[in-house]
Each structure stands twice: as C-alpha cells, then as structure tokens.
C-alpha cells in the first residue's frame, strides 16, 4: 500500500521547524511503523537528504525510546502498544499520516521527532529510589510481600518512561509517570521508610520542570503503552496528602 506522510522536520532546538510531505510506497501490512520510516529514510539518504530523526532502540515496546504523535494519537491508533509495536496493518492504502514529536514545554525538541525527556530523569533523581546501599541488606525472603501488593507494584513499575502520558495530556501533566514510581514503591515494604520525602520531592521536582496540573482527563491512561491505570495517580494524591498532613 502507499501512504502520504506529513512529518515534522526541525534541524535543532533553536530552529523553527515545519511539516514536510513524503510518500511511502509499496508498504507491506506486516511492516512495523518504524520499519516503514526506515524505508522512507533509506530513500531520503539515497537522494542526499537528511533522514527523519527519531528515537528508537528495542523495537519491542520495552525501552521507551520511541514515541511520536501519529494522527493526533500518542504512539498511534492502537491501545497498549508503543510506536514500535504499531504495524502498518492498522492503516490502509492511500491514508494520510501526520507525524509530530511529543509537544510539551518540559520536552524541548532536539531534532525532528526527537525530544529531550531528561526531565523524567531529574524527577527520578529527586526521589524515585529506595536508599538501599549495596551490601548489608537482609535476605530476599526476610520480608514477605502480599502477592496482590507485589502484583500491583509490578503494574506500576512496568512504566517504560516513554512520555506518551505527557504528550496525550491536554495539560502536559506528568502525573501518570511520577505516580507510577511513587505508587510502585509505596506498595512495597521496602519503600515505606522514605515514603514521605519521596512523594514531596518528586512532586516538587515535577512542578519545577514545568509539567501541568492533573484535571483528571484520563487521556494518559488511555494512551499509555503499558496501560498503567490512573488509580496510581489517586494513590500518589493520597500519599501526598498523607505526607503533608502527618
């Protein structure tokens, strides 16, 4: 099948950038979306043009590198799948596809579809950890963890840090990403000791980075490739109130 692509091209952070139109010809439905872009890029390089720059690595929806707005949907039309897991069978011959980078003030564009997501790392550095020094810790089975808590903690910890929640949110809020880590560690006995400082410092850093407030649109949950639930946002709100009031 053949498709028309309108792709955002931007040389670097300081230049303006604009949409460019390309055509993707004889695309097979079994190709992944990124493989389609690979083919388009190969054509551009052959013609001496610069290929479309986009972040990718694992191509199996686990590293969180890939991420682009495809026809107004973060990671494209599918549910519970990253851009690299989107296959061309979700499109039909003759479709027009608009491809843009994540748009959010805390995620400045580096080049074309690549944005700078280091704000996420700074939030993690502010408190997304348990201060367990290497060595001198109890046996793994010393503290049993109720299976439901461990399973729910895992659901929250499955976040791959792709940023689709921020991109899909009308307020560019990072609540789903931040609450996933706060909720993961709040559910486990190992996370209890630093519960208070963790949520306060992470929310403070989140606000400082310029992310928006959460007005519970739930678009983040809808677009999250790991289908992380907004109940983790509710849990973080609880943690925040608990930290402030006790």
């Amino acid at each position: 099948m053949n498709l028309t692509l309108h792709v955002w091209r931007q040389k670097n952070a300081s230049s303006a950038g604009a949409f460019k139109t390309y055509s993707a010809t004889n695309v097979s439905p079994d190709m992944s979306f990124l493989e389609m872009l690979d083919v388009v890029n190969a054509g551009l390089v052959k013609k001496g043009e610069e290929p479309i720059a986009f972040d990718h690595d694992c191509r199996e929806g686990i590293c969180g590198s890939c991420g682009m707005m495809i026809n107004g949907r973060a990671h494209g039309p599918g549910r519970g799948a990253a851009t690299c897991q989107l296959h061309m069978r979700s499109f039909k011959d003759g479709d027009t596809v608009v491809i843009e980078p994540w748009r959010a003030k805390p995620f400045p564009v580096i080049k074309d579809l690549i944005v700078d997501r280091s704000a996420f790392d700074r939030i993690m550095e502010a408190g997304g950890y348990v201060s367990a020094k290497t060595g001198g810790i109890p046996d793994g089975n010393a503290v049993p963890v109720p299976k439901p808590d461990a399973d729910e903690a895992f659901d929250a910890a499955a976040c791959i840090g792709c940023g689709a929640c921020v991109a899909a949110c009308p307020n560019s809020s990072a609540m789903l990403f931040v609450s996933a880590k706060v909720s993961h560690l709040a559910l486990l006995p190992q996370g209890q000791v630093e519960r208070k400082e963790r949520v306060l410092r992470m929310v403070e850093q989140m606000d400082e980075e310029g992310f928006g407030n959460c007005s519970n649109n739930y678009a983040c949950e809808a677009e999250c490739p790991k289908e992380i639930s907004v109940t983790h946002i509710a849990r973080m709100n609880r943690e925040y109130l608990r930290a402030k009031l006790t």
Partner: protein
Amino acid sequence: MTSLAAFYNSSVGKKVLMSLTGLFLCTFLVEHVVGNLLVFKGPEVFNAYSEFMVANPVIRTVEFILFAALFIHPFFGFVVWLQNRRTRPQDYRVYRLKDNTPLAARHTMFTGSVVLFFLVVHLRMFFIPTRFAEVKPSSYALVQEAFSNAWYTGFYIVALVILGYHLRHGFQSAFQTLGLRNKQYAGLIDLVAAVFWLVIPLGFATIPVYFYYFQRLAPAVMAVGAH
C-alpha cells in the same frame, strides 16, 4: 515558604483545594435544591424558609464559607487552567483528545465560567433583594416574576444543563484528586455523581419550568382555546 503556602503552591495542593471547595459547593446544592423545592408548597412556606435563611445566625456564618468557596474555587480553577495552557507552547496540528477524554472533562473551565456567570445573574436577582433592599420583597414573588420572563427562564435551563456537565466531570474528579477513587469504588462514585449532575439540576429546573408554564404558556393556550 510556610508548608501551608507550599502546599497550595504545588500542583497537587491547588487541585485538592479545588476538590474540597467543589465538594462543599455540592453539599450546598443539595441544601439549596431541597430548600427551593419548597416553593411548590406555596408562598407562605417558601417565604418563611427564605426569611429563616436570612435570619438564622448559623446559616449566615455558613453563608460566609459558601461565598469564600465561591471565590476560591473559580479563582484556583482559573489559575490551574491558565498554567495548563502554558505547558504546550507549540500545539499539535492533529490532536485527537476526544478519542481519550469525555466532553465534560475537556471543558471544565468553560462550564465553570458559565456557572459563574449564572451565579452573578442569579444572586443579583434573588440574593441581593432578599438581603439589601429596603423593602424586603417576598421570595415567592421574586420567583414568580423571574420565571415569567422567557429569556430568563431559558437562560436558567441552559445554565443548569451546563452545571450538570460541570459536575459530570467534577464530582468524580474531586474524589480522584483527594485519592479516594480506585477501581472498586469508581462505579459507586459515578452512581452518586449522577445525583449531582442529573437529579439536582433536574430538581432545580422544575421551578423555572413550572412557573413559566403556568404564568405564560397555560394562559396563552387558554386564550387561544377561548376564541
């Protein structure tokens, strides 16, 4: 910055404040719809209720909190809305938010502003006279007079529908913001929310509809029939 100020300066804190004020306003709505439905018991009962509202010292103090909430909630609503508009300087060319988020959730600022406008109109019509006019008019008379006007009645109906939308999103959103919503309770909260976004606005709407019908439509119909 004192911890309280820091609290309200933080994103979560501002939202908690909105939820508390929002829910408090919801409790007022319950009291107010029940109170206003007394209008169907005739002028004596309704005017007595109205005077009681004016006279009773407890009500007057709660009224103070009510007006505080009516200031804080829209104020922070606006602050939050403004902040959120600045987080995406370069907009998407295609942005299908409506695939992921219901209408009510996407326009709380709009629906809130309409409710604010409604309140201004409403208080000028009902609150000011019953509190500050030299000659205290009977509340019943005010209601009759208000809902004899087609435009005024129409505006109330529209405003009530929009209030419904505001709470359609708002009520459950407040529980989420206060961390009181999870998978098990989401269904229950939505059920209770229906009282606020459907039952209460309907309750309020019966008053303008009833008075306008019996003061304007029925006589007009009778007149036509009489020829």
